[in-house]
């Protein structure tokens, strides 16, 4: 009798354990606290491709056995974009050799990107004498699909190169040639054979395919059919990654959800949002944009809130590193999207490393580094009282 009871007790115990599995596991963080995850509205097939891209982006780690280097900057996508968020100075990359729109004069010496790491036995690159350079911290990669499908027409409409509205802010697109493998947008606007570019710190990248191909090649030394030139030898070599994987990663980047704002009902956040417009931050950090047509239905004709205008602006001498890309001046930088700003610390080791090279250690410090076209906004910020500044920071942290 006792034995039977004991056995029954054990069976019940095991049953309870199995049934309570879900309850004893760590719960998922709030969706708004995460940058990664797919956007809503993907089909099953699209979700499967998203997962494939997710695995390639976040789980595939390169080494000499699967093509890394021999010169490289990082060993994987996730090394620099932890949680799809911003990176740190320790994962920065360096570009060198171009000072104006006439192009990079140091391509024959390893430009534009410095591969500052190398497999054992190889010697990494150093910046050639006479070359100016700039250090870039990795950007967050969420919401890029929305930016991808903003029409050229809309971007151009935001530009004001001659400052006709006399607000001290001009804004110009980065015009450059596209790569051999790039298929121009159906609605592409051209000027002297050049196209509007939109991704990257200098808006020097045309689309996410170009960004992905370059990242594999220049950051990790992984050659693809799109770009078979090895950064070490300068020669064309066999692809080290499949075309499908590149496509999957591009799709992953396109369909990562847009960052979800938090605390939007908080009066302090609402007050900060009003101040954001009042001191003309919103002139460049445009709160709202819309996509045009996209073959991904979930991205077609959507309104979203990136807080960027995808244009280049003169940011003043303090942020002028003397290096540039495409048609941008050395002092010009693309307006950084502010969405997800409040979650930056979650991928930057609990600290802020803001601006193009992570030199700003707080949001306020980043604001104070603004100059050039943003000088007026910065001065208006400096003129705010302390509680207004706190409201503004609170709003920015809610994005």
């Amino acid at each position, binding site marked *: 009798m006792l034995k039977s009871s004991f056995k029954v007790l054990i069976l019940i115990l095991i049953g309870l354990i199995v049934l309570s599995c879900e309850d004893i596991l760590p*719960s998922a963080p709030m969706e708004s606290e995460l940058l990664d995850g797919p956007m809503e509205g993907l089909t099953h097939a699209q979700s499967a491709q998203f997962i494939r891209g997710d695995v390639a982006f976040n789980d595939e780690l390169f080494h000499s056995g699967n093509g890394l280097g021999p010169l490289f900057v990082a060993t994987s996508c996730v090394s620099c974009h932890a949680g799809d968020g911003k990176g*740190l100075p320790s994962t920065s990359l360096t570009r060198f050799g171009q000072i104006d729109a006439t192009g990079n004069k140091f391509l024959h010496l390893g430009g534009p990107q410095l591969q500052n790491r190398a497999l054992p036995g190889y010697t990494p690159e150093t910046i050639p004498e006479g070359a100016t350079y700039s250090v870039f911290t990795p950007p967050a990669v969420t919401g890029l699909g929305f930016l991808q499908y903003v029409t050229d027409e809309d971007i151009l409409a935001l530009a004001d190169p001659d400052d006709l509205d006399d607000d001290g802010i001009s804004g110009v697109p980065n015009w450059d040639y596209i790569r051999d493998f790039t298929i121009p947008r159906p609605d592409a606007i051209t000027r002297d054979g050049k196209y509007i570019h939109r991704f990257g710190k200098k808006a020097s990248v045309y689309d996410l395919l170009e960004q992905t191909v370059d990242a594999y090649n220049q950051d990790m030394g992984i050659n693809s059919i799109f770009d078979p030139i090895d950064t070490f030898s300068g020669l064309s070599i066999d692809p080290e990654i499949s075309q499908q994987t590149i496509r999957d990663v591009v799709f992953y980047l396109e369909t990562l959800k847009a960052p979800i704002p938090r605390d939007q009902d908080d009066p302090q956040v609402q007050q900060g949002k009003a101040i954001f417009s009042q001191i003309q931050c919103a002139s460049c950090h445009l709160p709202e944009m819309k996509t045009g047509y996209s073959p991904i239905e979930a991205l077609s004709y959507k309104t979203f809130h990136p807080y960027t205008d995808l244009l280049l602006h003169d940011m003043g001498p303090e942020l002028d590193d003397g290096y540039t890309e495409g048609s941008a001046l050395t002092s010009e930088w693309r307006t950084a999207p502010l969405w997800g700003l409040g979650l930056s610390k979650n991928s930057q*080791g*609990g600290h802020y490393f803001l601006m193009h090279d992570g030199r700003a250690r707080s949001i306020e410090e980043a604001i104070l580094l603004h100059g050039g076209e943003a000088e007026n906004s910065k001065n208006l910020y400096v003129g705010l009282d302390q509680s207004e500044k706190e409201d503004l920071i609170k709003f920015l942290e809610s994005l």
Partner: protein
Amino acid sequence: MKQLITLLLLLIAGMAQAQIDTTLLQINKTDSTQQGLNMDAVYDRPFLNLGKLPVSVGGYMEANWQYMGTEGITEGHEFQMRRMTLFVSSTIGKKLKFMSEIEFEEGGNHIAIEFASLDVEFHPLFNLRGGIIMNPIGAFNQNHDGPKWEFTDRPISATQMLPSTWSNAGFGLFGKTYKGDWMLGYEAYLSGGFDHTIIDNDQNRTYLPASKANFARFEESASGTPLTTGKVAVRHNNFGELGLSYMGGIYNTFEDDGAAVDEKRRLQVFAIDYNHTLPKWNTFITGEWAWINVDIPNNYTQFYGNKQQGGFVDVVQPLISKKMLGWEKASLNLACRLEYVDWNVGTFQETGYTIGDHLWSVMPAISFRPSQQTVFRLNYRIQQQVDVHNNPAEKTAGISLGLSTYF
């Protein structure tokens, strides 16, 4: 014709089986939870003897169900056959013993000779061992049989930082001596060893277990130099066993066809281990801690650290030891494992901030042993892992229910 031969062979096999006198099959019942020194683990295994044949066979298996999850993501129910291991040993002749351990993992997809050595016994303090040896670094590497432990998972520090089970072709000496309550043992081996994959692998971190995938190490050393492993252990009946061990050597191929292709890069591992059974409560405590230093090229990624450290402590408390459910010497135990591993000890050059890439875990457990050779175990793991950037920890938890037995 083939069918006829097959039938004939089956008939003979059946007859042969029918002729076996089962009384000749004798299980050498060793209590594998008790032992002299940790280094005796390979001797301290239950074997099956067939009559007076000099060959003994044995082995163990481990299987489990688990349900683990990380922050809302789970693989669901997982039914796993972790491994089945076969032992074959033989007393070849006077002072000559052969022992081996062949492991099948992943349903037979992974097969490895973990141990296959000839011991030549000259004197208790002076014995020669050669073949495939288990390098005596820490305690777990040599004492890893599943049925000895109250936990389904092997210690993370032992398998994901140290490369247990780590064995190589090599030779060396071992011995031990006793005096009163004291026991002293030593081991010293030269063997093949690691290769460049410990800093060039798909884990994105310095990872000693990566070299386990290099089966060429049983034919040649990547560096052309020996890996030195040594251990000294001392045991007192009242205070337990304390082991100090070292493993080191050049790990990379620095010369190829006579040409220098890299600098010589060294790897060093220091470990301390301890085990004891507290006499009053019969509480068993065991653990090990290891420190790893690896020479990394200056311009290499900081994700590959040049220092690592980690270890574990297991505490096992028998609650009931008596006849249960018809088993004469059954026991019910409560246990807990504490683990910590830091795969990258140091700071970032650019910021001076501490590099992350560490993990801690707590794993309470209940185990039931119908005999000392068999264990049913229920584990609950709570784990937090921090990435290299020191971002907020990823929380993992889950339960596993498993069994492991010698046979």
